């Protein structure tokens, strides 16, 4: 952790007063990163880049958008038709939301597979779940802004959920709406919050990174860094690897924008909002579908809402539900199976969320919901007690942990 000697006199001058170059050197170059990270570790930095894309495209959209129920839809169409490259900016933002969730969901399942949430990274994981929650709130409010049919009815359904709370429910909903229905005050505050929350996300991302850099990345073996040979500097090794991953991501992203920009959207949202006409099928955006399925699986409204929130809340306590000291699923033969079953269960829930609330989908969602909670509340605690892990390797780079001097930051 010695301070680097800079040769450029300006860099030297600045760094003496504001040690920004020392910090960059420390966090990027010296920062020891496990040498065995695979491509699933690309999705963290990718998520940060997508957040940047969303903020920049969103700021430009906000310059041309009108948050009023009489003009919102028209202003979006004006962006699509008359604003220079407005169609491009809007399609980037629209599809960027979907890709943000794709990237973050992969990032989270990677964490589940390799046990990245375990000690000493519990707070790192919890901050990640906070980011996901903020993303969901932001995405939901953003979807309302074009003021199409799905915007309006999605907002109506989701805000109405709070009316399930006993006694105070109705008051909360009125307070959220700023009136007695989803109307102009609702649109205005959603726009305001939609602009605010991404910066809150960026703030939590900084905390997430601070927590990450405290103990460094987990790795596919899930064992701690034992010696110097286990690590490589983040730069240039992972900067170039992340850049390659970014290239793959951007290629897919641009291809979708160019050739299927409305594929992940819903045709009904090209119909202006009409409070008098309910769409035949109110469906949230695809990234909410698993939670929507859990909501509908419970026949009682209040308990449905509670189950939906519990599905996210359970993630906060995951580090304490999983009692196994072994991180990586590679060395947990039984957890390995349950991980894939759980992933399949989540996809099944998403599928159920897209299906109408009628047989057989109701029963399937109920079973899938039960399994979702059983995974966290029953299977993980029991596995921690009874699973017999496979022998762990001694170190990331192989051989005895004492081959060379111990790494500067031995964990725990």
């Amino acid at each position, binding site marked *: 952790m010695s301070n680097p000697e800079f040769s450029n006199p300006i860099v030297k001058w600045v760094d003496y007063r504001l040690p920004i170059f020392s910090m960059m050197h420390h966090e990027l170059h010296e920062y020891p990163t496990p040498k065995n990270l695979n491509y699933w570790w690309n999705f963290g930095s990718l998520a940060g880049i997508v957040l940047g894309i969303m903020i920049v495209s969103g700021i430009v959209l906000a310059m041309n958008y009108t948050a009023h129920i009489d003009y919102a839809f028209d202003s979006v169409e004006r962006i699509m038709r008359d604003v220079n490259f407005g169609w491009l900016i809007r399609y980037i933002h629209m599809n960027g939301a979907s890709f943000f969730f794709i990237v973050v969901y992969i990032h989270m399942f990677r964490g589940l597979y390799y046990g990245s949430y375990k000690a000493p990274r519990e707070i790192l994981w919890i901050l990640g779940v906070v980011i996901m929650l903020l993303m969901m709130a932001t995405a939901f409010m953003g979807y309302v802004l074009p003021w199409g049919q799905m915007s309006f009815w999605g907002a109506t359904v989701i805000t109405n959920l709070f009316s399930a709370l006993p006694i105070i429910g109705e008051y909360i909903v009125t307070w959220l709406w700023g009136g007695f229905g989803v109307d102009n005050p609702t649109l205005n505050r959603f726009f305001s919050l939609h602009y605010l929350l991404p910066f809150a996300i960026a703030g939590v991302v900084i905390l997430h990174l601070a927590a990450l850099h405290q103990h460094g990345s987990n790795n596919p073996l899930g064992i701690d860094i034992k010696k110097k040979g286990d690590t490589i500097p983040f730069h240039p090794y992972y900067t170039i690897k992340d850049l390659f991953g970014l290239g793959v991501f951007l290629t897919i992203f641009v291809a979708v924008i160019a050739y299927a920009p409305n594929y*992940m959207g819903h045709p009904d949202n090209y119909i202006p909002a009409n409070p008098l006409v309910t769409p035949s099928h109110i469906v949230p955006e695809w990234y909410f579908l698993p939670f929507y399925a859990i909501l509908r699986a419970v026949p009682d409204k209040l308990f449905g809402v509670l189950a939906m929130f519990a599905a996210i809340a359970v993630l906060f306590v995951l580090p304490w539900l999983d009692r196994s000291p072994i991180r990586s699923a590679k060395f947990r033969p039984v957890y390995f199976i349950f991980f894939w079953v759980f992933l399949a269960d989540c996809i099944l829930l998403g599928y159920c969320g897209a299906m109408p609330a009628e047989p057989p989908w109701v029963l399937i969602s109920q079973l899938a919901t039960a399994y979702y909670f059983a995974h966290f509340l029953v299977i993980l605690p029991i596995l921690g007690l009874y699973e017999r892990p496979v022998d762990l390797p001694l170190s990331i780079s192989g051989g005895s942990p004492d081959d060379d001097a111990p790494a500067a930051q031995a964990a725990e």
Partner: protein
Amino acid sequence: MGTQSRFQHLLAVPALVAKRTVQAGAALLIGTSIALAAGGGEPTVCTPKDVPHNDRHWGFQGVFGHYDKKAAFRGFEVFRGTCAACHSLKYFTFRNLADLDVPEDAIKGIAAEYEVMAEPNDDGEVLPRTAIPSDYFPSPFANEKAAASVNGGAVPPDLSLMVKARASFENHVPNILDGYMDAPEGCEVPEGKYYNAHYPGYIISMAPPLADDAIEYKDGTKATKEQMIKDVSEFLAYVAEPKLEERKSMGFKIVIFLLILTVLLYLTKKQVWRKLH
């Protein structure tokens, strides 16, 4: 369970449109194509025996897709000759015809055939004036109530986004225009309504709008019903997504650029990591 039934009213789906044929399992998986497709639903007496299916090929589909500008302009003629009697086209301006290679003078001439309301004059009167290219295509009705009152209570929807606002996308317009037929036996069609095999619920308020030679094309093309359906569908697809050509051609170039860049980044990555092994 009062709250629950209210909740279900918001969430549950009317049985009529519940089941639908799925375009692709993968599409369903991410819940994109859930809206009702024309012709879906629980079989009723009105369910058509065999639905004429129009899986048409459009020149604007595919990687290098582009609009057939001549057809789209003929479609504009169909639109203003027939559809515009009832339907608005709110987001279309006369100047947009330049996208269909219509010369400036011709656009001025077409605009001049219409009148729009001017700004209030110095005496505060709002008088009609001749339209200019920057004007939006005038709507046939002053407001929704006026539209409903002369259309038996049904409001003819704006057509600007019709192609993007229905699950069957570019096939929606030709399907509806082609879907008029005799109702199956036992299916009651109310007075002033029509049977359409492609309309959700099959009972539509719009009278069959096209018949052979309903209009006369300027370019001499014979105005058969099928020709008009094709042309007006092309035109409405263009109005719904006017930047499609720009999007596809720009997208293609960027994808090629990114592919090359990604390969170079991969080679660089290999080079950098080689030192490790």
